[in-house]
């Protein structure tokens, strides 16, 4: 019996090896693969780096790399054109110290009779050996939303409640079919915070613990060097915590310190003074008086895009007295100081990047415009989103500007970047196109996708209608839950009749040996459909559907 099974297995394997192309033939079953990886932007206005503007430019990119830029460049035959006239093209934005898509790493349970004065490092929030990438949801919806605003690259920080949550990574906001990790261990993340209830419990303990860790990392390294030449010594015990700190001490990895205020910045500078590591400070929201010192120490600086709430623009006139008036004025002054801080950094000639941590997406452009109104130049704002973070992250060779050899990360705007009416038309990330133009939503041309929901006897049924028009004929597929529980199935759409106000088609569903015939018809108003689904021999059921934005080109 057993031998028989093996025989079957063997013959299967033989069969398989005879048809190796079978697998490849299946890889593009849905026609998802893009036709070309070569594109060119034609006759466009290019802002290759902050302060430069070039008109009538063509830009060719292939496999995610910019191949040529200029007025007269050779365009290969396979290159697909992206019409660039009336568009303004900027380098893709770079976000620093960002945590979207990160999940908390699992932390070991506290043992019975736990002594909070001597916790293991992981329980104390000290796990510099954790990597952000191990706890990152690559295809999280937030990053896609940030990409819509122009972000193509981000430094991801690990989550964790304590002082050393782990190492940061660099990721692309690229196409979900690709691996979008650019580098791990980009910097080591430190913050002035604790898990609570165990040592260290406050900034007092954090500072002391840091000093001890640094000293012991040095001693650990020394022990390792001694042991490598002297095998008769006590062996070097593995210590992932100390080993994760050694690259910081050797200036191979920068320490990225999160600050919540001026005093944190000073603490960070003191730490660097002591141990001379490469320092990046993120979350900067105050500290004008510290600018000369930060400049002198060549600290990588990341300002927050999150601004305090404006409590002063719409204040009703009331009579609260002179003292209250005075206090209001001081608070307002403090508010304006926050708005003008990036401008002050720029005027002092100190490069800085921005972080969107804690920022609402809807406030992104609003806050940058507020900063521009309060002294930051538009070039300065663009630099803080492109060239400067690229420098701080040491990726200037591949990102931050638009020129030959750089990654094809771009934002295509309908107007100059920070003007009120400017809209993101398209974002190109890693050479993939993400079309956010409004015209892509109209049904006159190209594809459309509807998401529907129908009420049937068996309960709610959901799925998608994918429709494509070719030579005035609509074809496509409908997806639905397999009535026999086999997951999602698709059928071919037949007899489709689509106008701007109505939609109708039919399809068949195989259930066992039976075939159900289904007809869908109804009215379209704007982006929504409301109608009827007739299953022949069973009855009529209401259907509602919503049109999705144009799907990403794959």
């Amino acid at each position, binding site marked *: 019996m057993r031998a028989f099974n093996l025989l079957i297995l063997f013959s299967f394997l033989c069969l398989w090896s005879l048809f190796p192309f079978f697998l490849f033939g299946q890889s593009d079953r849905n026609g998802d693969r893009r036709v070309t990886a070569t594109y060119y932007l034609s006759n466009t206005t290019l802002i290759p780096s902050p302060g430069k503007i070039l008109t009538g430019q063509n830009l060719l990119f292939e496999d995610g790399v910019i191949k040529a830029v200029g007025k007269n460049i050779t365009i290969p035959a396979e290159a697909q054109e992206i019409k660039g006239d009336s568009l303004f093209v900027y380098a893709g934005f770079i976000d620093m110290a960002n945590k979207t898509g990160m999940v908390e790493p699992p932390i070991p349970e506290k043992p019975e009779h736990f002594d*909070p004065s001597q916790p293991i490092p992981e329980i104390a929030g000290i796990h510099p050996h954790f990597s952000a990438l191990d706890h990152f949801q690559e295809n999280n919806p937030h990053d896609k939303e940030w990409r819509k605003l122009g972000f193509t690259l981000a430094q991801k920080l690990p989550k964790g409640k304590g002082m050393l949550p782990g190492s940061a990574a660099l990721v692309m906001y690229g196409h979900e079919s690709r691996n979008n990790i650019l580098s791990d261990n980009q910097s080591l993340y430190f913050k002035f915070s604790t898990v609570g209830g165990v*040592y260290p419990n*406050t900034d007092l303990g954090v500072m*002391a613990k840091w000093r*001890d860790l640094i000293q012991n990392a040095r001693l650990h390294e020394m022990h390792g060097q001694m042991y490598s030449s002297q095998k008769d010594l006590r062996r070097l015990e593995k210590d992932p915590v100390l080993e994760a700190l050694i690259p910081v001490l050797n200036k191979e990895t920068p320490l990225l310190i999160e600050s919540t205020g001026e005093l944190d910045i000073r603490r960070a500078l003191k730490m660097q003074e002591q141990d001379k590591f490469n320092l990046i400070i993120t979350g900067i929201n105050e500290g004008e008086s510290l600018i000369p010192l930060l400049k002198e120490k060549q600290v990588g600086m990341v300002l927050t895009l999150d601004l305090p709430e404006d409590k002063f623009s719409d204040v009703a006139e009331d009579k609260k007295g002179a*003292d209250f008036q005075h*206090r209001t004025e001081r608070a307002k002054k*403090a508010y304006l100081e926050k708005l003008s801080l990036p401008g002050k950094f720029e005027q002092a000639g100190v490069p800085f990047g921005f972080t969107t941590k804690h920022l609402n997406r809807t406030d992104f452009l609003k806050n940058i415009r507020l900063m521009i109104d309060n002294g930051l130049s538009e070039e300065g704002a663009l630099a803080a989103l492109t060239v400067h973070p690229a420098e701080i992250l040491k990726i200037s060779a591949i990102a931050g500007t638009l020129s030959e050899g750089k990654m094809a990360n771009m934002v295509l705007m309908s107007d100059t970047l920070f003007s009120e009416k400017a809209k993101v038309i398209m974002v190109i990330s890693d050479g993939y196109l993400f079309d956010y133009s409004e015209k892509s939503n109209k049904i006159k041309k190209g594809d459309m996708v509807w998401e529907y929901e129908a009420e049937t006897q068996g309960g709610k049924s959901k799925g998608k209608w994918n429709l494509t028009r070719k030579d005035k004929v609509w074809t496509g597929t409908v997806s639905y839950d397999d009535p026999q529980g086999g997951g999602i199935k698709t059928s071919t759409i037949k007899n489709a009749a689509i106008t701007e106000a109505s939609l109708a088609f039919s399809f068949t569903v195989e259930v066992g040996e039976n075939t159900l015939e289904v007809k869908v018809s109804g009215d379209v108003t704007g982006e929504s459909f409301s109608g009827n689904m007739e299953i022949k021999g069973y009855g009529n059921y209401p259907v509602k559907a919503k049109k999705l934005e144009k799907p990403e080109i794959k």
Partner: protein
Amino acid sequence: MQTKILLLGLWMICCSKVVCQAQNASKGDIFIKNAQVLTITNGLLENTDVLVQDGIIRQIGSGLRAPDGIPSIDATGKYLMPGIIDAHSHLALEVINEASSPITAEVKMEDVIDPFDVSIYRALAGGTTISHAMHGSANAIGGQNITLKHRYGTRDPDQLIMKEAPRTIKFALGENPTRVHGRGKNLQPRSRMGVEAVIRNGFEEALQYKKVWDDWNASGNDSKKQQIPPVYSSRLETLVAILEGEIIIHCHSYRADEIYMLIQVCQEYGIDKIVFSHVNEGFKVAPELAKYTMGASVFADWWAYKFEVYYSTAYNAAILTKNGVVTSINSDSDELIRHLYHEAAKTQRYGGLTDDEALALITINPAKQLGIAEQVGSIEVGKQADLVLFDKHPLSIYAIPQMTWVDGVKYFDRENDAADQRLKVDPEETLEPIFLHTEHHNCMRDVDFYFTGFGRNLFGHRH
């Protein structure tokens, strides 16, 4: 052309001076004329002038002439005394307790100085120019304290540090450490015996640690040394420094038995740099305190806020003083620090101390306990010009401070006292919340995590 060069030169001198000021705490010049000078160490000098240059008292006498350009003040009828020194405070600190371990000798209050705390200005308005910013009393051996000069107005925490002051550390006996660690977390210490054991174990471990490191260092740079590098511990480093006499202990204590216990432990380990704080039962062990310690820092009349603080008397400071103990009166409170001269005056009502004895409690004596008596604590030529001018004798209940100087720089002037003295303003909060009972949030702040409602109700006190 020559004038141009001259001007350039002058300009460069000015610039270099500005740079110097930016790096070091500023120092001022002042000429105070015809004051009633309470020197503390040399009695009352009537109608006397005091000349301050570059932050230092240069001359004391009558009929002095100030060099040109030095601002002068007519202090006729007013009383000039040294800036008041508070040997036990938690002012201008972002964090007070690292309550997560019975010994936290490694933590440093200098890491968490808050220069924006408006209480610094309020203390100046009460004539206090120096405070000893201490770790709280949650742990048997707490953190390393820092001595602050009230140079209010700087945004740089380091500018508040009195650089000449020696290192000090907080110890705590009795109910606070036993409650936090023993009852709160079921760790040692759970009793007064446990507190002693924790301290002794700490010292013993420090001695072992020192030996390991001494052996390592003695083995030199021999590439074939048969040792591996020892583990570094700033906690044990600090305890070693205490044993070697580099750090003054300031110990939170109430009961005579525990005070005497720690005196004995210190004797055993050869430690003589110790000051006891609160010391409500100090009057019972006054001769021992006089003989073996750097003194006692007490409240004038504050007690009965928990069980171990019932046996107390307002005569404590006077009894200690008469027994030859270096005694000071401290605030342990951002409120009390504004009128320590009242607290000192209470010792005249309870114990009949002389003016000099009473004023010493808040000037030269706390300076001695902090190891800074060479620099401050009295009005003497060569000392730092931390001064406060009162309209009446400071031991009078009617006295009001008029001006306060630190290093000859005036930081408070009642004539010129704007209502809003905040350095930093929250842009989202026009009216900041006001916390009542600020005097109760100090010694045990930041340990709330360890206490449930049960603990707080049972022990509704914080010292």
